[in-house]
């Protein structure tokens, strides 16, 4: 986290993100309106159709998204507050990308092994802990989770080849 006040530090402004998110919200709303209209957003002999309520929900999403978007466009020049600096965003990715890899791991080989690997590697690489300490914490969390869910509460979590080797 050095060079915090360096003016050259690249950053995204709040107002830019505000406009982008408002546009996304508008698009989501439009999607809801479109699908509700397809289902029928009016009345038939049984009363309100399936799309009746979501249609107006989507419409309100669209309207509020559009208003926030226009409000943002008016302030585009004047508002210079920073949403996130590049170094901060890198920190976010430091946890987000490994988390995504972890979820992929869970999908492929069950939850217990990826959990231990994720915690251990994160401690070692990001936290600069010794290999032994990282391994101990990682194993402890996985083993406690295994005892808690598979043995005591009998709630099955995703399992893979390693758990099968152990007979589960």
């Amino acid at each position, binding site marked *: 986290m050095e060079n915090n006040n360096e003016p050259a530090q690249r950053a995204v402004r*709040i107002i830019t*993100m505000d406009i982008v*998110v*408002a546009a996304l*919200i508008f698009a989501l*709303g439009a*999607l*809801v309106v479109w*699908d*509700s209209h397809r*289902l029928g957003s009016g009345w038939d002999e*049984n*009363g*309100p*159709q*399936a*799309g*009746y*309520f*979501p249609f107006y*929900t*989507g419409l*309100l*999403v669209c*309207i*509020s*998204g559009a*208003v*926030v978007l226009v409000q943002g466009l008016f302030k585009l020049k004047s508002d210079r507050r920073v*949403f996130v600096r590049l170094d901060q*965003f890198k920190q*976010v990715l*430091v*946890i*987000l990308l*490994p*988390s*995504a890899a*972890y*979820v992929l791991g*869970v*999908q492929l080989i069950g*939850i217990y092994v990826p*959990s231990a690997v*994720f*915690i251990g590697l*994160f*401690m070692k690489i*990001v*936290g600069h*802990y010794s290999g032994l300490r990282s391994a101990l*914490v990682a194993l402890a*969390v996985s083993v406690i*989770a295994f005892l808690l*869910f598979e043995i005591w*509460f009998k*709630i*099955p*979590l*995703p399992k893979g080849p390693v758990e099968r080797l152990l007979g589960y």
Partner: protein
Amino acid sequence: MEELNALFHGFSVALTPFNLMLMFVGIILGVIIGVLPGLGGANGVAILLPLTFSMPPTSAIIMLSCIYWGALFGGAITSILFNIPGEPWSVATTFDGYPMAQQGRAGEALTGAFTSSFVGALVAVLMFTFLAPLIANFALQFGPAEFFAVYLLTFCSFVGTGKGNPFKIIASMMLGFAMAAVGIDIVTGQLRLTFGFTELLSGFHFLVAVIGLFGIGEILLSMEEGLSFSGHGAKINPAIVLQTWAKLPRYWATSIRSCFIGCWMGIIPGGATPASFMSYGVARQMSREGAKFGTGQLEGVVAPETAAHAAGTSALLPMITLGIPGSPTAAVLLGGLMIWGLQPGPLLFVEQKDFVWGLIASMYLGNIAGLIVVLTMVPLFAAILRVPFPIIAPVIVVICAIGAYTVKNNMLDVWMILVFGMMGYLFKKLDYPLAPMVLALVLGDAAESSFRQAMLIAQGDLTVFWSNWLVGSLTTLALVLLIWPFISAAMTRLRALAPATR
């Protein structure tokens, strides 16, 4: 005194050794959740909810509500010792609590905070005991139109009382409603908003949304801020506790005002956080020592803590009596009730007496247990906060993943918490409130079906929402709240113009 009889029956339900043990386990887990970054009342309860599916509902709700009390207590610890509010409602506690800790009066501040939390909760539970049956009884006469009007009032009050851009509040709320609509329509059996993906058939589960929005989202925010904890040590011994207790009666007026603010604001959705700020502000204006607030006044800790805890407790009142939760955590508890097959609402008081009065009795006992736990175990909880973030962060991601999977044994939900996490990160930074979205996601189906039923009965005539004085005044009040931000903006503009034209 029918309520007292029912209450004593409730104590007999709640006071089994198993339930007492669950109470202490719940409080301890709750405080830990309240202390850890990335875990809060709402997603903490959401993650632990699946563990309670095998318990009897009364025991389960006792444990879960105790987690909630624990989280309310826990927020104060981080605020005072570390100047980091563990929960949004404990932000106001940092104003005077942290300066006290810097002056070496952490024990006094903590004792004051815990004791006034306890007082606030106790007053709110007393109110709950006598008011809840009345409201439930009254609500028994509600038809679909009345229920929809109450839902409308709940959601419009987010706009009316919320700070910030009203359009962002509406956008967040309506996205929640849209997500609630995804899946099979219960009335017609048609598929809505699934766009051909079979995974979307069962819709978005709000527990998954809560775990992602609050859990993963909070971790992303904490990583960005590069959190490093540097806190003050806390020593609480009986002497400090007794000394502080001797001082507290001096602030009786502040305490009563804060209880009142808390109880009132708690019934309104999203109440605990504004209640704590409001109570702090009022105390500063009314107190003789008002000018010294912010420099480490015990009164400045008493006011927000009393109000936050009173509000947190009274948030359960509309949830139990009307089926409308006053906070995201209450919404998660409500979801739990539905999973156990209990339909929250006025009928609960008629059909599930044991459950309701057991819960109310556990509110008294749980808060006593909470006070004992936090006063005796503060050093332990403070030690948990000193565990470095590179260990905490991946462990919480793992806990969130497990929590999301156990909701309905679906791998897609584990992916969804990442999506919701990014959404929570963006929304939090751009001032879109998350509470209206969660509440809309929980209540969406119920609100929609009451709206459809009302419209069916009235054959599509919207005047059904003004067909009698009750539903009419609810609807009108809701609409006034909805346009309130615009009225107040217009009034400030007029006031600014008035001197200029003179």
